[in-house]
């Protein structure tokens, strides 16, 4: 009995200490990435390649999912608003839901699974096959040459992807609401424009997506850099990236929302 309890306590304690340890290492890692980012500016080609890798290659999934989310919002929103005889508010509903929440959050989740996992796998395998050590041997700083450009690539891509997602979603909502169901087109746009504020809603959405971009890219980089240099270690690291970034995005979303939209 005592033995079981003892082991359970040891286990919990180990997990907690390990978690704090990892958090500290991640913070130091963030510092390194930021400190060596001068090269990402001086050699824009490095960053550009990473924008291609994380941003351009995620375009298709973002456009397709954005449109479908908009279509679903249009259908569901219309079904509910119809009961109150205010189906003209469909535009407002679709635009606010997308710009404030769904655009940044869903595209961050997609970004984590599409680009975050790829970043972790790349860095993890570079470490496992000792490419990072080889760079150090040649006096090339892997932070400046690989990690920092990847970080900035992700941070630049994420707000753009979220904006594309929201725009496609509004287009999807328009397609269902106006073209197929037949909500008045002028009311759709005028109510949307009257109720969506440029600073309050759209700018806050962009800030959200930028924060998510920083969080997801950092988690992906750190998990890859921290992965045990084995095939199994890299596979676990990729899984952890997706899970941790999803949790981080949702938790950060709550924090940011409570700051931004206080209900005033």
């Amino acid at each position, binding site marked *: 009995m005592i033995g079981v309890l003892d082991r359970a306590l040891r286990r919990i304690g180990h997990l907690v200490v390990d978690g704090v340890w990892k958090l500290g290492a991640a913070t130091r890692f963030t510092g390194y990435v930021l400190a060596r980012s001068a090269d990402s500016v001086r050699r824009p*080609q490095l960053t*550009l*390649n990473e*924008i*291609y890798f994380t*941003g*351009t290659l995620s*375009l298709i999934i973002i456009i397709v999912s954005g449109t479908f989310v908009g279509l679903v919002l249009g259908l569901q929103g219309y079904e509910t608003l119809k009961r*109150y*005889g*205010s189906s*003209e*508010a469909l535009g407002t509903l679709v*635009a606010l839901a997308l*710009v404030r929440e769904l655009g940044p959050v869903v595209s961050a989740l997609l970004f984590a699974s599409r680009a975050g996992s790829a970043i972790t796998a790349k860095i993890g395998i570079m470490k496992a096959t000792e490419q990072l050590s080889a760079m150090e041997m040649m006096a090339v700083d892997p932070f400046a040459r690989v990690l920092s450009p990847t970080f900035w690539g992700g941070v630049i*891509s994420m*707000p*753009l*992807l979220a*904006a*594309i997602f*929201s*725009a*496609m979603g*509004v287009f999807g909502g328009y397609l269902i609401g106006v073209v197929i169901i037949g909500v*008045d087109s*002028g*009311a759709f*746009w*005028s*109510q*949307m*424009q*009257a109720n*969506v*504020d*440029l600073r309050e*809603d*759209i700018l806050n959405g*962009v800030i959200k997506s930028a924060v998510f971009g920083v969080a997801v890219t950092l988690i992906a980089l750190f998990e890859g850099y921290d992965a045990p240099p084995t095939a199994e270690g890299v596979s676990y690291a990729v899984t952890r990236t997706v899970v941790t970034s999803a949790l981080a995005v949702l938790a950060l979303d709550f924090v940011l929302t409570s700051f931004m939209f206080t209900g005033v």
Partner: protein
Amino acid sequence: MKRTTVDLWVGVFVTAGVVALFTLALKVGNATTVTASHGYTVYGEFDNIGGLKVRAPVKSAGVVVGRVEGVVLDQQKYVAKVTMRLDNRYKFPKDSTAAILTSGLLGEQYVGLEAGGDTANLAPGDRIKLTQSAVVLEKIIGQFLYGKAAEGNTAK
């Protein structure tokens, strides 16, 4: 500087992102100044427009015949001046009435045009003289309560 294919694709991606941002700002947000191009404008003065928005529909017999183009407060008379752009296809007699109505109980507000009997039609820039303001629910409830109270006094 040598150009690579990656540059092109990054360019495509960044352009798409910036276009999406501008679409959100201009089309979805309220930083827009888009106006309808065809049609003619008339205006009406209302004591109270309630929640009438720019670009709200102008309807006659339930058919959309135009859009509200601008709402400003007349500083001399302290009434709301509502400019409406009507479709060229539709002509209305000079003595038509404009009323601000609500579609449904919680729906959006629109301008309802009711044709009069004049032989001359509204010309561009004309004023619709007969207008009916938006119904303000609080006023109606107030009137109803006063009426009830007055009824109670006379009955005594």
